[in-house]
């Protein structure tokens, strides 16, 4: 028997029909079968996984039950620090870096009994929407290996989709959990800004970054999120109040729920017809289940992409200043400290990261700071007010997650702007700091998965997961197709 859900595996562990070692062996067997084609992992910790699994079995046998993640194999994006396990952020500048500490989210996963399978591939420093910007080669989509898995958390999404872990962690700055989840046919959630500690998350854009879960089922994503969220004194932006558990209302259904339909969120146009019709079909099913829908307009989100591509590069240029060849990472020699730093950085960063550091440095430079970064932060306020207006009439908002399904490798790498528009539907939630989740609802004409996005006001994760769980069961989408060996990972490696 193959286990695909965390909740199902957790029940089987307690009924004795599987052991944690058995689960670890299942994901390792699947990994050895498909990883050569998918390349989801940068580090696979086979020995550590089996050892931790044996420990989890012993604990459970001794009556020490750490909860629903106990003994469950989880894949982690390689921009979260893991003690004594290489952490590269997909960058040459951090190749070989062994962190001396665990990120808070990692520590909480371990405390909850989860097993870390390894570190997954990503666009360098999480900058990208296809995982093609990794310094260590691209990840491919398990549904069709000629296609990208999305990004930047493409490695975690692909690993979970193909059964190389039962769940995963990603990070989402402008859609980097939800868009790859959508393209890989799995569930992915970005929590409220501040819900999950960023301590140990290698910073990209500090006012936007959030860690969140990727899984086959909405319920599993909620289990993962509830394990890693909560106040952390080590992150000054961490939310100090209590939050209702995200899985508290999974059976709440849709009766009377007011759903705002944000069809043109972010100024989206050119939504693929198959994506649009899957979206409309899902909406109709939700109405049939008692949801009340109304079309809403968030006009300022049309400026979201522009605001994002000022704020994110500006903050990244400041955050990435720490990579200077002094304390860790790549060093290229030079006659002076400045020359050594300038060479190390030029050599260590890939082209997308270099481009954003340059753009961000410019946007923050003397004379332009107010006109660009300052203006973008004000537009961000207008976008938050757009959302606040919409939430006076609605409990949640919905939209497609991505205007397109998985695109072919190489399709958008030549033109940065064509890649950036991949995220028009997802960016507004990051700018507002609100939670959002992508749930797979169908396939397009090429048998590629289509995602449906549910957004909620800050700290209203429970309502968001309630709606997500209801529409997941209405859609009845089978996320486990890429598990089937006969599915054969079409496309092949070119």
């Amino acid at each position: 028997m193959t286990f695909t859900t965390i909740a199902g595996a957790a029940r089987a562990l307690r009924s004795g029909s599987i052991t944690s070692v058995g689960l670890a062996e299942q994901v390792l067997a699947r990994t050895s079968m498909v990883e050569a084609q998918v390349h989801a992992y940068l580090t696979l910790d086979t020995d550590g996984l089996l050892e931790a699994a044996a420990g989890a079995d012993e604990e459970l046998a001794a009556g020490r039950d750490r909860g629903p993640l106990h003994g469950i194999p989880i894949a982690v994006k390689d921009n979260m620090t893991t003690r004594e396990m290489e952490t590269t952020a997909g960058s040459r500048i951090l190749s070989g870096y062994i962190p001396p500490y665990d990120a808070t989210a990692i520590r909480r996963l371990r405390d909850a009994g989860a097993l870390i399978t390894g570190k997954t591939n990503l666009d360098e420093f999480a900058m990208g929407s296809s995982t093609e910007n990794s310094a260590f080669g691209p990840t491919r989509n398990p549904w069709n290996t000629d296609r990208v898995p999305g990004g930047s958390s493409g490695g975690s999404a692909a690993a979970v989709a193909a059964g190389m872990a039962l769940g995963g962690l990603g990070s989402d700055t402008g859609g980097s959990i939800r868009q790859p989840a959508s393209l890989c046919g799995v569930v992915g959630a970005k929590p409220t800004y501040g819900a999950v500690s960023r301590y140990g998350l290698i910073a990209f854009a500090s006012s936007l970054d959030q860690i969140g879960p990727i899984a086959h089922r909405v319920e599993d994503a909620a289990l993962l999120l509830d394990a890693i969220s909560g106040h952390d004194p080590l992150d000054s932006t961490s939310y100090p109040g209590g939050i209702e558990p995200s899985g508290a209302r999974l059976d709440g259904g849709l009766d009377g729920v007011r759903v705002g339909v944000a069809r043109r969120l972010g100024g989206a146009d050119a939504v693929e017809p198959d994506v649009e019709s899957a979206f409309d079909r899902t909406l109709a099913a939700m109405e049939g289940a008692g949801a009340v829908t109304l079309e809403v307009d968030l006009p300022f989100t049309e400026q979201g992409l522009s605001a994002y591509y000022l704020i994110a590069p500006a903050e990244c240029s400041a955050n990435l200043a720490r990579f200077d060849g002094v304390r860790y990472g790549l060093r290229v020699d030079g006659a002076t400290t400045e020359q050594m730093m300038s060479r190390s950085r030029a050599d260590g960063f890939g082209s997308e990261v270099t481009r954003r550091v340059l753009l961000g440095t410019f946007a923050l430079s003397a004379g332009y700071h107010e006109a660009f970064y300052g203006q973008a932060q004000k537009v961000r306020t207008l976008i938050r007010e757009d959302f606040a207006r919409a939430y006076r009439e609605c409990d949640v908002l919905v939209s497609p997650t991505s205007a397109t399904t998985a695109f072919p490798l190489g399709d958008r790498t030549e033109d940065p702007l064509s890649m950036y528009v991949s995220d028009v539907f997802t960016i507004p939630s990051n700018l507002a700091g609100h939670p959002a989740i992508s749930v797979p609802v169908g396939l397009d004409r090429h048998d590629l998965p289509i995602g449906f996005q549910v957004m909620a006001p800050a700290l209203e994760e429970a309502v968001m997961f309630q709606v997500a769980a209801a529409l997941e069961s209405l859609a009845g989408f089978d996320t486990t197709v890429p598990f089937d060996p006969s599915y054969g990972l079409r496309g092949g490696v070119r």
Partner: protein
Amino acid sequence: MAVEIDISHVARLARLELSDRQLDTYGRQCQELLEHVARIQAVDTDGVEPTSHPLPMTNRFREDRVTPHTVLGQEEVLAQAPDTEGPFFRVPPAIEEA
């Protein structure tokens, strides 16, 4: 406001030693991106407060106490450095000799 990026100056500020060809390519790309995002300047933001944190939170303070699980030993910290000397990080000269 029409803007032209002085890409060599920006690269110097960002501590990136780039070739002339790279400067040319990045300069062109950044200029294009900037022209696209500069549309944001047309938005009327008179009297609008900027957002820095989406939740109503301001500076948060905690007691300055030693938390053993977040304190790293000197050896651990230096272990990842490209060059060290004794308990120090070592770098090429920062100031030219007179």
